[in-house]
């Protein structure tokens, strides 16, 4: 263990991390949490480094979170937003990235609707690549900030029961969380209509439930996912009315979880669709703390990839 150093050049997904890597990111993030409570919310850790936010999908939350994280580490940051895909614009992703790299950034944070795009960038880009969400594949910083939130509440990130409810099929957040909690040895239940929760997910280490009360029973964490109608999820169940009846979380269903259980949601939430309005605002809800933790986790990731931590040790 003494020889362990964070050895990743990129953050492509939770799948690529060891449990030790995850612990290291969380511990580093914990040390960064305090910075955001200071009067002067800035440390010089990444002074002189350049971070590019390369976003091919609409995103305010994640993009802003990375931007604030980079700035609190004193990195220079530029936003490159393109709601239309590079392909439709006529320039290939390779050309877009090579053009940006001609300006010598250190880290490229990419969000893209096509799964695997961050891995594709690593085949030719020189920068460190951070996956800020790729298609239905992974959203590793979200799973890490979720884990940090759980760790703050339960003082550990092991031995937990995590229930994830909703559109598993189209959710990169679900995938990253399932993989993370499997790696940490936690019990994961996934709950939703069968059309959105294929049985094959059990091979990733999750248990499938079609009944929400069974699925959240004795859970420490109930994580609700947004119904992603923009990804065509609407065809997978008959109506929001019926979905809400079977898969929304309300106080009655939430009572099936442990007394100490917490409610999480990666946002943006659809109030009174997947989540009962009053429960979302109750003291069981850690939704806003998740957002706050996003800054610390993204600071940790940027720092570990290009901070002094990775300068030659010997």
């Amino acid at each position, binding site marked *: 263990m003494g020889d362990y150093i964070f050895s990743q050049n990129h953050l492509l997904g939770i799948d690529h991390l060891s449990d030790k890597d995850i612990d290291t990111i969380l511990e580093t993030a914990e040390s960064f949490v305090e910075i955001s409570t200071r009067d002067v919310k800035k440390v010089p850790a990444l002074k002189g480094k350049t971070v590019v936010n390369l976003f091919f999908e609409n995103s305010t939350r994640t993009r802003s979170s990375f931007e604030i994280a980079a700035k609190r580490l004193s990195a220079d940051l530029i936003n490159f937003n393109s709601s239309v*895909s590079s*392909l439709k614009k006529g320039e*290939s*992703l*390779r050309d877009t990235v090579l053009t940006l790299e001609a300006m010598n950034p250190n880290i490229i944070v990419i969000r*893209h*609707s*096509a*799964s*695997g*795009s961050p*891995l*594709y960038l690593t085949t030719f880009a020189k920068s460190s690549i951070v996956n800020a969400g*790729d*298609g*239905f*594949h*992974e959203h590793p910083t979200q799973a890490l900030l979720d884990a940090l939130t759980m760790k703050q509440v339960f003082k550990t990130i092991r031995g937990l029961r995590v229930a994830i409810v909703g559109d598993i*099929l189209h959710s*990169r957040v679900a*995938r990253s969380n399932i993989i993370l909690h499997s790696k940490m040895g936690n019990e994961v239940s996934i709950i939703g209509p069968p059309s959105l929760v*294929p049985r*094959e*997910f059990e*091979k*990733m280490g999750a248990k499938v439930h079609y009944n929400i009360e069974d699925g959240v029973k004795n859970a420490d964490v109930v994580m609700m996912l947004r119904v992603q109608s923009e990804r065509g999820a609407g065809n997978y169940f008959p109506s929001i009315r019926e979905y809400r009846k079977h898969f929304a979380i309300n106080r009655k269903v939430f009572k099936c979880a442990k007394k100490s259980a917490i409610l999480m949601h990666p946002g943006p939430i659809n109030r009174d669709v997947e989540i009962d309005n009053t429960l979302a605002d109750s003291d069981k809800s850690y939704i806003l703390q998740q957002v706050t933790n996003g800054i610390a986790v993204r600071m940790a990731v940027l720092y570990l990839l290009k901070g002094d931590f990775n300068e030659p040790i010997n």
Partner: protein
Amino acid sequence: MSLLIKNGLVIDPSTGKDSKLDILVEKGLIKKVSKKIEEKGVKKIIDAGKYVVSPGFVDMHVHLREPGQENKETIETGMLAAAKGGFTSIACMPNTIPVNDNRSVTEYIIARSHEVGVVNVFPVAAISVGLDGKDITEMADMKEGGAKGFSDDGKCVMSADLIRKALEYTKMLNVPIIEHPEDHSISGDGQVNEGFISYKYGLRGMLSAAEEVIVARDIILQERINSLLHLTHISTAGSIDLIRNAKKKGIRVTSDVTPHHLLLTEELITSYNPVYKMKPPLRTEEDRQALIKALNDGTVDAIASDHAPHTFDEKDSEFEYAPFGVIGLETSFNVVYDKLVRTGILSVSKMVELFSTNPARIMGLDRRGVIEPGAHGDLTVFDPEKTFKINNEKFVSKANNCPFNGWKGKGSIVYTITGGEIAYQA
């Protein structure tokens, strides 16, 4: 005008030849096959003492892209690729621009192929006008113009009524309907095989069922109609079961598989490299084993490449945005010989059936796929011991989207002979 191939191991399953023989080709036709043929007066002699001589290979499923997409491939470059890969005859699919759905396009392809001349090109024309699945094309006219089969390849005929009518109509033409079995309402905008890997890697899937429901539908229709039905690039164990049972019942159906479905599986897409993106998608190891088994028990009749050239830039992209398809003309024989014949899974004779005898028969190619006096002088000569290394920068095809790039092994084409002329020499 005359060519003598001496002392090669001649393997022709259709006539039962499997011994060292001399073959004399004159005026484009095989004149004589026997133990010893006099060399006197022969213009060109090939010493095939270390080689195997097969009836010319036939690839019944390729895309030549011309007319319309000459940036991907042309009739000429595709034909040269075929010759290099040992193919003396290729059947080209109709999804050109414009679509080969009328006699003028059919005749253009044939005329252009005659100008190039190195191999035989047999156009497969469209089943439906514009490949739009609505109205059947002027099939009899196109057959007169040289079409050897009909297919809406890439787009499965989704209307059961239309495929019924196409099968019925072609009964009088005696040419095959070649179906690309894919229920588009199931496969949708799927990218890869649907299952654990597609779920884990976040790629939209195409269920095996998308292929199998069409295989089943067509077999059921064919049972009554008894036309000529060929199911192309079969990829699932379920399809194999359906075809095997149909054949057992005596239903007239034939099928082919590709080298990539025989040798690769869906695990490769975890690299998100679009060189592994094609339709049907790479499937599971269980499917792959079922395909291999089906080669030997006669369920699968032919190996075809589904040679689908795309430009480098088209394939150099996000997985989801890359077009479907891989090339295979220049590598099919190498990889199949090395991985399936040298390993003892297929006999050389079985391989020749799959590469020549059967596809020639299915496509109704008169006096091809056979070595006997009077047959066309189409011969493929290969060296079973000669090593190959696949290098996608050295293809004569315009494209390099080959999933076997870098593969090494033994078994190389040394001569491709079309109509008694040397089309390719290593």
